[in-house]
């Protein structure tokens, strides 16, 4: 496969992965903080690598803030959202690069649920003037829901989805179209 065709395939794949992320988040938005986003970003990081996952995360944040029928987060919270989701590929390719089992990743997802919530604290406290402890206390229910949702989805779905994605990835890159010269 030529470099140009590889790039086209990569771009298409990134768009598809970002679409899956966007659609599932919208579909589950009636349940606050219950989502497959953490599971999918963990999967993408492990199966497709850091670079592609980073592009997917940036596309996802743009899509959520531009296209979501529920509206964007306030502009000052967008960096927290980007940093939050990027923390997964960053951590899984640095300090937790040896973390491969569903159990270990589920525990990582559990704690990530809290960290993701805390990333929104600085803007809420310094810009929106919400008292720190009040915000922390009010948000903890949502952090618990996200932590449990992350833990359960990764624990039960990481292994079968990883197997499926690996097979699809191999098929996707194997059936390259080679133009005749």
């Amino acid at each position: 496969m030529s470099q140009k065709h590889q790039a086209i395939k990569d771009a298409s794949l990134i768009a598809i992965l970002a679409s899956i992320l966007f659609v599932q988040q919208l579909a589950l938005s009636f349940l606050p903080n219950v989502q497959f986003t953490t599971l999918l970003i963990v999967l993408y990081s492990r199966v497709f690598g850091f670079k592609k996952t980073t592009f997917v995360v940036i596309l996802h944040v743009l899509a959520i803030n531009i296209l979501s029928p529920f509206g964007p987060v306030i502009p000052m919270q967008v960096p927290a959202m980007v940093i939050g989701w990027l923390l997964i590929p960053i951590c899984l390719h640095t300090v937790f690069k040896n973390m491969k089992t569903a159990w270990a990743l589920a525990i990582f997802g559990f704690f990530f649920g809290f960290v993701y919530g805390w990333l929104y604290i600085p803007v809420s406290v310094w810009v929106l003037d919400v008292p720190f402890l009040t915000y922390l206390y009010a948000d903890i229910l949502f952090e618990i829901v996200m932590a449990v949702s992350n833990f359960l989805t990764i624990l039960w779905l990481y292994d079968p989805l990883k197997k499926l994605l690996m097979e699809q990835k191999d098929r996707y890159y194997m059936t390259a179209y080679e133009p005749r010269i």
Partner: protein
Amino acid sequence: MKSTILKIVVSIIVVSLAAILTYQLRESNLASTDGSVQIIIVDDNGNIVFDQNVIYMKDDNFFDVLNRQFDLTCATSNYGTDDSCTYDFSGFAYQGKVLLGIKGDGFTVQTDWSNSFLKFETYGEDDYHLATQGVSNIEFSNHDKIRISYASVLEGLS
């Protein structure tokens, strides 16, 4: 097989613990005694149209306090206006009304949710701070000061 059983057991434990914690952390913020709160209402021009102490009774929530004193307009499930204030929003972490308008003697402050909303602030530490709960769950006690202001969505919260 052993691994699946372990997964099931751990999942049940995690969900149960989360459910217990969520139940314990839910708060209704009802008044524990009779008392009064100072309520300040600011209209869409930034003028203070109401600034008085309002009496509350034991077991009132903040919505009850307002409802006894003013004519209120709440939101329906799709954020239309509901003058009867019968609809309650409810979820795992919240339950209560969404307030769109307040009408008192000589003033009306009305918002539409899409372009404007009512901003609730509680006074503490020499300044007003945005409330982190809805109107039915705002924490209050005797001699507290709560400001309700018209806010435009485009202008933001500051």
